[in-house]
């Protein structure tokens, strides 16, 4: 192929690479890349605005990520086409590479797909207090492959989406109110009615305890070491911590004042003689 002007001396290796044709191809690739990336940027900013209003953070992040990946893949294909690369052979090779990568990235794909299931179930959102496999914390971020929890002692824990699909997840803050469950064991000779009245008055005087739903009291069972009582007091999510502390403090104080005893594990040993 003859060039109208030569950039490098004839028969030089550089003259074979840097031809006018190559320059045109590179320019075309750069233009396609530029236009493509700008178009992706515009589309993503539009999606961000729309999804902020109509979707939750998790779904919106996932939609944005998918659009980003799809867009970038399209731009790469288009720029290769602009560069005159034969895509048939490349796609064939990509298929084989895809299978190999697919096997290698099984876990990541599984986590990615699990993310979709989690998204459709909507069991938690950023800022919720959840517990997974004994790990408890506030949902810090929800990403494509994992969920990050910030524990109460300020550690960041990454939980793969697959784990969240497979195991039980407890969301403590989903509903506006939560019940504090108190289990008490008192000696067999205790006056249950008096204890019930005492517990009810503790809940009634507590500023954090909700009047409705009413506190719940029941006798769970008569066990070997005493009578097991259950007392449930409702708090708003915001007041749960303070309510828990104040109820337990007041309960202990009132039990001491009213001379109500807690039962302890005891073994009676009888001497036949």
């Amino acid at each position, binding site marked *: 192929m003859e060039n109208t002007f030569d950039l490098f001396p004839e028969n030089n290796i550089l003259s074979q690479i840097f031809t006018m044709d190559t320059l045109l191809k590179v320019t075309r690739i750069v233009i396609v890349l530029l236009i493509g990336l700008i178009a992706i940027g515009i589309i993503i900013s539009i999606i961000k605005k729309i999804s902020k209003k109509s979707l939750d953070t998790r779904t919106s992040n996932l939609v944005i990520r998918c659009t980003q990946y799809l867009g970038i893949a399209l731009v790469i294909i288009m720029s290769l086409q602009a560069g005159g690369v034969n895509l048939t052979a490349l796609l064939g090779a990509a298929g084989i590479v895809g299978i190999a990568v697919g096997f290698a990235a099984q876990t990541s794909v599984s986590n990615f797909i699990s993310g979709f299931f989690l998204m459709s179930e909507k069991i938690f959102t950023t800022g919720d207090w959840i517990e997974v496999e004994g790990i408890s914390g506030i949902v810090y971020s929800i990403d494509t492959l994992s969920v990050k929890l910030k524990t109460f002692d300020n550690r960041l824990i990454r939980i793969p989406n697959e784990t969240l699909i497979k195991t039980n997840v407890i969301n403590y803050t989903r*509903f506006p*109110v939560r019940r504090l469950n108190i289990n008490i064991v008192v000696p067999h000779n205790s006056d249950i009615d008096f204890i019930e009245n005492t517990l009810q008055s503790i809940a009634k005087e507590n*500023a954090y*305890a909700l009047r409705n739903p009413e506190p719940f009291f029941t006798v769970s069972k008569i066990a070997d070491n005493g009578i097991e009582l259950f007392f449930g007091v409702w708090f708003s999510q915001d007041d749960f911590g303070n309510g828990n502390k104040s109820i337990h403090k007041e309960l202990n104080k009132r039990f001491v004042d009213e001379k109500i005893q807690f039962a302890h594990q005891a073994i009676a040993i009888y001497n036949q003689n």
Partner: protein
Amino acid sequence: MWGQIELPQNGKVKNISIENFSLYFGVQEIEDQIELSVASGFSSPNSIVKVKSKKQKIELSIPEGSWQRCYINKSDNINITPSYPDKAMFVELNNSFNLLADSEISGWISTNCEVSVNINKNELMQFSIQKPFRTLFGSSDNGTICRYYKSDFTTSKLDKNNFTEFSIVHPITIRNQTGHILNVSELCIYGDELSIIQDTYLYSETIVFTINNQGTKMNINGDCGIDGCNQKKGTLLVKSKISPEERFINKSFELFKTITKF
């Protein structure tokens, strides 16, 4: 009781007692500004105000953490006004009653006001004059946390003996459009939508509850026909946070949403 207050002298504390509730105002002058400290307590502490001459520090038997401080100009006006709590008010009726189908009843209930300390009409802080209790209105999965009050629902004349100067009378009209007998045992009021007017009593606008099979609607009606709550004679102490125009726009938007759903 309500209105502008005079601040104490530099380094001293002023006590304003409201039933068993006390408000304390402490002042420290710093050049052109004043460090205003406000604290509250339910039982009046046997406190003696001490002023350390070197550090100019106010000492009271109130824990240090209870004081809320702010810096104001010497020319700023400080006033106390009644106010509604920031949460919705859930009123459990001492005397629940049945309302016949397609009928309405008018009466009144009362709640206790909060005390707001304002600087140049801007609310600085709010205090409860009684120990505040909370409750849930609605279901445990999507209900609202409200302040809890107990009140009689009375249709007779207002009796001064039933009120303190901190009670707010709420004239109520309940319309039963459900087509069957309705038991009325609790009411939920949104204070943001109500004003506080002072005549013989503190009172709000009339609240109209319309109950039908779709749910309960709360509307505000300015016309209050109760003796002692005369809107013409009364003084407006607190304006509702949501203006009638805003309320109208909200209602129109709700209506629009309902129409477009169909």
